[in-house]
């Protein structure tokens, strides 16, 4: 069964995915260690994709594809016709910066979907990225979290502008839906509800 939760018209449901997520070919990454411990998080802006990987990425010749940001940028010409048919989305990692995407794709809303891949659930950069895509860059289409996506972060992801969530394969997505509504009346304004509690309610001292 599908492990994809989608929110449409304010309602969350399990839905089938008609997108193909295009992966980069594997690269030889050396395991980095610091004080004997494996480094788990990449630095923001760190270049992790080689030109060779970009060139060797295999994009299925038809159907709806979500390509890596580096591929979208480097191979734009090749993809343009499919972009025009609304068949191309993009994905990026939490350590990637948004500026190259914005510079490359002047109208983000030409992309039906943007996907943010979170390698480890504890990487809260994903929330700022979601927020920026929605509030700063005006992205209105599907915004999806994939990777180490777990139930206990869903509420925050939703509030940060995400509208679909590919729950990690070994977890139960149906049960996870409940956590989208862990809190009914949050204090601060965020993406899903811009007004803070003090502007939404008549709070009397």
């Amino acid at each position, binding site marked *: 069964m599908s492990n994809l939760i989608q929110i449409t018209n304010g309602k969350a449901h399990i839905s089938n995915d008609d997108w193909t997520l295009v992966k980069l070919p594997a690269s030889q990454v050396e395991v980095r260690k610091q004080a004997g411990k494996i480094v788990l998080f990449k630095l923001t802006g760190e270049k992790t994709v080689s030109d060779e990987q970009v060139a060797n990425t295999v994009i299925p010749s038809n159907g709806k594809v979500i390509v890596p940001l580096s591929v979208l940028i480097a191979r734009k010409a090749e993809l343009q016709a499919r972009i025009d048919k609304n068949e191309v989305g993009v994905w990026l990692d939490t350590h990637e910066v948004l500026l190259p995407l914005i510079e490359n794709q002047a109208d983000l809303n030409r992309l039906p979907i943007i996907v943010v891949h979170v390698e480890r659930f504890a990487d809260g950069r994903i929330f700022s990225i979601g927020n920026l895509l929605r509030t700063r860059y005006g992205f209105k289409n599907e915004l999806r979290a994939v990777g180490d996506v777990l139930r206990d972060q869903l509420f925050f992801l939703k509030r940060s502008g995400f509208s679909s969530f590919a729950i990690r394969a070994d977890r139960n997505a149906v049960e996870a839906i409940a956590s989208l509504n862990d809190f009914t009346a949050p204090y601060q304004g965020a993406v899903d509800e811009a007004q803070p509690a003090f*502007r939404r309610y008549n709070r009397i001292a």
Partner: protein
Amino acid sequence: MYKYDEIDQKIVDERVTQYRDQTRRYLAGELSEDEFRPLRLQNGLYIQRHAPMLRIAVPYGLLSSKQLRKLGDIASKYDKAYGHFSTRQNMQLNWPKLEDVPDILADLATVQMHAIQTSGNCIRNITTDQFAGVAPDEIVDPRAMAEVIRQWSTFHPEFALLPRKFKIAVSGTKEDRAVVQAHDIGMEFYLDTNNKIAIKVWVGGGLGRTPILGTVIREHLEWQHALTYCEAIVRVYNLHGRRDNAYKARIKILVKALGIDEFKRQVEEEWSHLKDAPNTITEAELARVAKHFEPMPYEVLPQHDASFDTAIASNPAFAAWAKRSLHAHKIAGYRSVTLSLKPHGHAPGDATTEQMHIVADLADQYSFGELRVSHEQNLILADVKLSDLYAVWQKARAHGLASPNIGLLSDIICCPGGDFCSLANAKSIPIAMAIQMQFDNLDYLHDIGEIDLNISGCMNACGHHHVGHIGILGIDKDGSEWYQVTIGGSQGNNASIGSVIGPSFSADEMPNVVQKLIDVYIKERNAEERFIDTVRRIGVTPFKTHVYADKTVAKNEVPA
């Protein structure tokens, strides 16, 4: 103090439900250890040496008598009938059971309390001056803004998983008592030239293994923008803070790496988009919250009270206590009273269930039913009439709460250390107790005068050793416990980080080392000079020379 409406109550109730389910899933094996860790931490639950530790939030250190009574009840129902008040104005239970925590949270919720964001990589409890609202040198009462910031930071979705913990302190006095410069963000409220509340914003302070005092990022911020400006700072930090190395993950490292000018440029650029967004605070909201902090219904009293003056004149023990434990008050005829949680020979900051109940009674009877927790780990009755002080003292004394040592050498700030904490290099509580016993003579303590002695069991600096006039840090050398000593640290407006005096010492040597530092001070001091002033005037060398002159000390040195 702030009282919940149904919105506040719902959030803590829903938190209890959420956490109960998270605990259930963990116990059922549906959440791995790694996945549960940030969840329990954001709820103040550490797994410690002997048992879990639960840190309960005391927002900006303010408690009602009802809440303190409940804390006492919880400590006896779920723990060993005592709690530990921490340097971050919270309360910790050292022996709760992991399975009981959801029930503890449910009990807390009945008195408008919780453990939300008391730990973990998120925005922590907001701290402030323990005399907020009553101190004569106060310019702006910071409590309403502290509450507004608390609400904003509670489950802030964008900042739920930061690179590292994030601490905000606010203060509104001339004499900073909230250590704003040692916080990730420090906000100093003042009145600007238009007589409007403005904020001086400090960023990038913090203790821990790389102690750094904050830098001013903005001299003048209108109060309405406090939240959006914090959002700009924390967003830059969330995106660019070092997640690859936990020791370099605090905002202070980012600020240092970029330099304050570049960091400020990025923050201001972010803020240009966030300024005036809906999270901008409204006059109405500040007024609503401020209503909860209106002055108490004080009586009109003369400056002096004859019964108090007589008791001072006739009872030296009372006079000694009053000299150390009373703080001036805005209102004539009132004082703020610090109840010492530092009786000699006990773990600093601990209070028993019985003591919590007694303090709650005292608050009800003499101080409008409220009290405060100080970052020096004592409890405070903020509004006591002069004529009631003698009765307060008698009752406090009968329950071990009236050691006349506030601000003196034995009023030690001390972390839980190796007795409880799994990160510790060395024990800290026994060192504190040994020093208290060494200086167990009150006249002598009073003669030594004001001095801050702070002890941490490791470089995480929970005991603020860097800003102690004397700081003691537990270190590990080849598996045994050693102590490094710094002098010249200080908190407040004139904050400074202490200097290491030399090679470290064993536990046995510590009382004697402190004795020698004090001997040099007594010999060298000018009239009216505090220990820290003498250190600043004559430098570290005379202290160092005397401490290490003794062969028996020198010979125990460990090769570095």
